[in-house]
């Protein structure tokens, strides 16, 4: 099987139960899924869990994939919802203020060098934003999506995304200035 076979073809075959096609597809997309998971979670451990969870969900759902969107968009959506679920679930259990939560996450992550290096102030502040603002920022700047794509994923209008971004920028700038 050619390694450069387009996602759509692989997905079609995977949906029919082709194991090798699915394996290739999963292999190809794992890194992006992991990156997304890390953006939202900010710790390697959580990111790895979310990424794995996403891959498993993908495996279960691939046979029902109907090509109503591009495969990568579809997978993105699974990853995004999985990450959000993860954060929500964590929050439901222990009600910390967002800033505290971010601090705890960051502290947890401090143990391994990559997380420590990567989780600088900006990341922490972005993760401490209200959910919608955080999602808008991470989707647009982290995942490099258009406002329209982000809106589709977040289930709101494009305008709302722009507004969230605007608000987020205001907040971030404000807090960045306050920081020593």
């Amino acid at each position, binding site marked *: 099987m050619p390694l450069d076979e387009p996602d759509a073809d692989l997905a079609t075959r*995977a949906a029919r*139960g082709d*194991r090798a096609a*699915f*394996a290739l597809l999963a292999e190809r997309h*794992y*890194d992006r899924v*992991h*990156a997304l998971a*890390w*953006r939202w979670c900010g710790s*390697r*451990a*959580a*990111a*790895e*869990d*979310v990424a*794995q*969870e996403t*891959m*498993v*969900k993908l*495996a*279960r*759902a*691939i*046979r*029902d994939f109907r090509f109503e969107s591009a495969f990568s968009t*579809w997978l993105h*959506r*699974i990853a995004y*919802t*999985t990450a959000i*679920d*993860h954060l929500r*679930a*964590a929050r439901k*259990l*222990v009600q*910390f203020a967002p800033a*505290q*939560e971010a601090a*705890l*996450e960051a*502290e*947890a992550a401090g*143990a*391994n060098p*990559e997380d420590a290096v*990567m989780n600088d102030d*900006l*990341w922490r502040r*972005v993760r401490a934003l209200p959910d919608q603002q955080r999602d808008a*920022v*991470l989707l647009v*700047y982290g995942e490099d999506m258009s406002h329209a794509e982000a809106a589709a994923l977040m289930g709101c209008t494009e305008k709302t995304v722009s507004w969230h971004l605007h608000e987020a*920028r205001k907040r*971030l700038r404000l807090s*960045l200035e306050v920081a020593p």
Partner: protein
Amino acid sequence: MTTDPLAKLAATPPPREAARRAALDAAMAAFDAAETVGEKNPAATQDLPAPPRPRNAINEGRPLMRSAFHMNPALAASLAALMIGAPAGYMIYSRHPASPMTNTLTADGGADVLIGRAAPQNAPSDFVKKVETDTLLPGPAPVAPPAQSYMPAPMPRRELQAAGKARTVGAVVQRPVAEVVSRERLAHPVLDEDQALARKEHRDKFEAHVTNPVRQTAQEPVSTFSADVDTASYSFARRMLNAGQLPPKDAVRAEEFINYFPYDYPKPDSADAPFRPTITVTAAPWNPDNRLVHIAVQGYALQAAQRPRANLVFLVDVSGSMMPDDRLPLVKNALRMLVGELKPDDTVGIVTYASGSGVALEPTKIADKGAILAAIDSLGAGGSTAGAQGILDAYRLAEAHFDKQAVNRIILSTDGDFNVGVTDQRELLGMIERKRESGVYLSILGVGQDNYNDALMQKLAQNGNGVAAYVDTLNEARKVLVEEASSTLFPIAKDVKIQVEWNPAQVAEYRLIGYETRDLRREDFNNDKVDAGDMGSGHRVTAIYEITPAGGRKLVDDLRYGKKGETPAGGDELGFFKLRYKLPHEQKSRLISQPIRAGSDVDPAHASTETRFSIAAAAFAQLLKGAPYLGSYGYDDVIALAQGAKGDDPFGYRAEFVNLARLAKSARP
């Protein structure tokens, strides 16, 4: 945009390979599991943006379960925060109250199977007991009550690092979700995080050991070590060299290189004195001033009629990673060959483990060979690894058919990462040790590359009175299982220890080549409680010391204020060799001893081919390991030495060795 600070949100740390592999394995397992379920109900799951969740007839209309399902991310997430990136650490749980024996991934009646990563690292020990006792329950077990969760409450690996996270985990565990989770066993990663990080190219795990240093006889006259007949290191190195790559230094154990080859040493006469040592002193080919003291110990070979009955349980890893030809298919062939070697009265049982564990074949007499071969043929790879459950099942089976007169042995075949559901590695080792006391031994047949966990396999085999062999080709499998079947299966002695006391008047310095992982303390030699290596029928063990004769050019300077002038007894002896062993069914050790004397002829060319060849093997291992004592001696010298000492070599092992030495010259590091 380049100046926008938010642009840096695009960068993230790269995923770790182990985590990546784990996730992909989990995905493949889920993909396989969904196969049958998916066929039944093709219409579903396009109602995004909700995350796609599998739906099937069973799933529909069970709100409790659905909510449990929804909790999965949280559960997986927080429990999995504990997980260290072992290539396959999954928790598989089914709400189907199936027996742990039959609970496998491949769709049993459409029970939906969840996969999450999880693994408590430091679970309390009562957790272990619970798992163990639970496993011994025969037949279908009831669904565990909510409180009896297999999630140990205090545990996460990041507990120390993050109080906050720990609290999250605790909270999750309290939730009723745990009830759903309870049935299946937790799989366990065994490697340590740093180890995993440190290894970039291949994830095979080897424990680093410092090469034995030169010791001064005046300061430390006694050298003690445990016999070792493992050969895994050599086969592993061969595999890498054949791929044009030098093996990692830590993967090279000189004693396993030396002991890999069959040598024709003088044989002992009876099983009552099962060992015969032969000691040769020759000049070191890499340093003419030094001597090599070559100690060859030949074990007694049981005749077929003396062989006890064998009660074997094959424990076979059938997880997804075992799929390649050099893994499960190879293991299956190897087991077929082994079955061919056994006697009609011997029994074989087969336990498999992947996501779950199952008995593929109840212990069956070899007389019914057809049934055994059919069971071996039907083994197929798929799913993730839950080794601990498998090992518990294997012990259960072996114990159920325990025969005091027989050799009761489990043969574990795996490509390495053995997920230790029985809490941590030490617990597992402890368990294997206890089982060994009860008479069930464990041997390892390692296959595959990439995630071969050498250190763990070696330890498991050591604790289980067994051999760890790494099998890369069918030919190797034949060597281990057919040619050496009786030595692999039938022990002639256990706790074999060797101690050499050097005479400072004759030997200024010495160093033992290899056996770093087999080092024993001087006082352990006479302590029968201290475990050591075991030897099977016909096994032989070779140890080589390099010594600097007194008065020679020494590597370490003398102490100015050290003792001088005393001439001890046995003046002309280089040293004194002692070997302790226990007969298989005895608890008290026996002793064999003899003095080491140098003959007048130390010309290496006059040594036997066996001696010369083993020296070549020792030199080769040292070169691969980068040990500093060989001076300018190189691969060409090894090749020349081995070429001239090939002897009979009926199976071509020595010729292959020469070939590997040639490959090593051009292999990339």
